[in-house]
């Protein structure tokens, strides 16, 4: 009760940041978090097998994956979003399937675009880390008579994923920032809320600076989370003194 009073006093006389607009921003934070978290999760699950296959010796496995990552990393996410958002209607027969009620809303096309995009970047990050595995570790595994599969599981992947951690942290932040374009296809994420508040009150500084502050806080939270993870998981690489 005291908290509510304090909150009302804080907002008293403030024309723009009413409980209502703060509610928009809060819903925006929820939407942004859902979009970013889900796309990163699915993207990560896709990227692990793709990055292993990307290093395959067979040309017909390696090349299509390379083409996929090249196209998705070489074109703007906005174009990818437009292609999926405007194009999904034209996929034959999709309107008859159970997926249609989901795909008709902007959320799922955006989620698909973000997922495919982050999966492409993450595949390349992991591929680079796998390729950088020290020769000695692979030879040691071979000397122990490990099969390829066991070597991948026990030796290469654990060390590669740890080495990929800093680059992956950057990718997570990149994804958070890239998610701002969801507002272009009418989604009310943080940026969408800011655009709505701007349009309603014609107050660009208040509307967008508040959104910027929220993004800044989220960015720092991600940054510190990954620093913590790196300290824990890369402890064996720190100089010992």
């Amino acid at each position: 009760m005291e908290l509510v009073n304090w909150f009302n006093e804080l907002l008293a006389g403030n024309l723009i940041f009413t409980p209502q607009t703060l509610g928009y921003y809060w819903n925006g934070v929820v939407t942004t978090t859902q979009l970013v978290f889900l796309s990163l999760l699915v993207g990560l699950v896709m990227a692990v097998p793709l990055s292993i296959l990307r290093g395959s010796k067979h040309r017909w496995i390696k090349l299509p994956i390379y083409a996929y990552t090249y196209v998705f990393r070489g074109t703007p996410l906005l174009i990818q979003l437009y292609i999926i958002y405007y194009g999904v209607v034209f996929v034959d027969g999709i309107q008859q399937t159970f997926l249609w009620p989901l795909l008709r809303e902007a959320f799922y096309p955006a989620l698909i675009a973000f997922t495919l995009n982050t999966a492409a970047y993450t595949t390349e990050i992991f591929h680079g880390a796998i390729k950088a595995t020290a020769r000695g570790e692979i030879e040691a595994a071979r000397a122990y008579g490990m099969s390829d599969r066991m070597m991948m599981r026990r030796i290469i992947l654990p060390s590669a994923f740890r080495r990929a951690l800093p680059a992956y942290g950057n990718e997570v932040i990149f994804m958070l920032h890239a998610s701002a374009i969801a507002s272009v296809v009418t989604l009310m994420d943080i940026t969408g809320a800011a655009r709505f508040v701007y349009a309603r009150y014609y107050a660009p500084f208040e509307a967008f600076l508040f959104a910027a502050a929220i993004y800044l806080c989220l960015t720092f939270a991600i940054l510190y989370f990954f620093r913590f993870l790196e300290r824990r998981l890369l402890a064996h690489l720190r100089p010992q003194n």
Partner: protein
Amino acid sequence: MLDLHGYGPRLLEGAGVTIQLAVLSLMLAIVLGLLTASAKMSRSWLLHKIATLYTTVIRGVPDLVLMLLLFFGGQMALNVLTDILYDRSGIDIFINLNAFAAGVITIGFIFGAYMGETFRGAFMAVDHGQIEAGKAYGMSDWLVFRRIRFPLMMRHALPGLSNNWMVLLKTTALVSVIGLSDMVRVAAEASRATHEPFTFLLPVAAIYLLIASVSEWMFARLHKRYNVGFGGH
């Protein structure tokens, strides 16, 4: 052949806008990046703090939010400034911040922060003996910068520079949101009007890939040029 429903010329114009925007903002970003790197390496406590604040805040906020802030807020700030000018001295001017200028300023401003980090690392990698040698020849500070520090720094900065350029190129797509008719906006408008999204969006994606491939080739050439005398690595 591809039927573009008469949108062909506008799409081509849009591609021109994209390229102009990207090149101009790259130039602004390089200038800002050099200034930021110098400020970060300077002995002045205040300059260092300002540069650190700039790079931290810019890199922590999405490009689109900064762009909207500068585009909508910039015009308002300009109006306030010209109003003050009118009240004080009777000079009546109206500066209209068009979408192109806002785009160049915002993208240049954003990537200036990234360039600053790239250049700082590269400047620090330059062998100090080379700079001392230049001074021993009696070169002025500017001459040392132009003939020694800059070319040697570029060797270390090129990989980061090329990476920043690729990201910058893709960021230009965002100006379509603030009303600039770049190729993304033209393609999106055409898709909505004709209900044929793939006809317009896929060629635009291909143009982005083409520009990226051409720039990769150009950066490979630059890389060769700035690595003369370093054993071809």
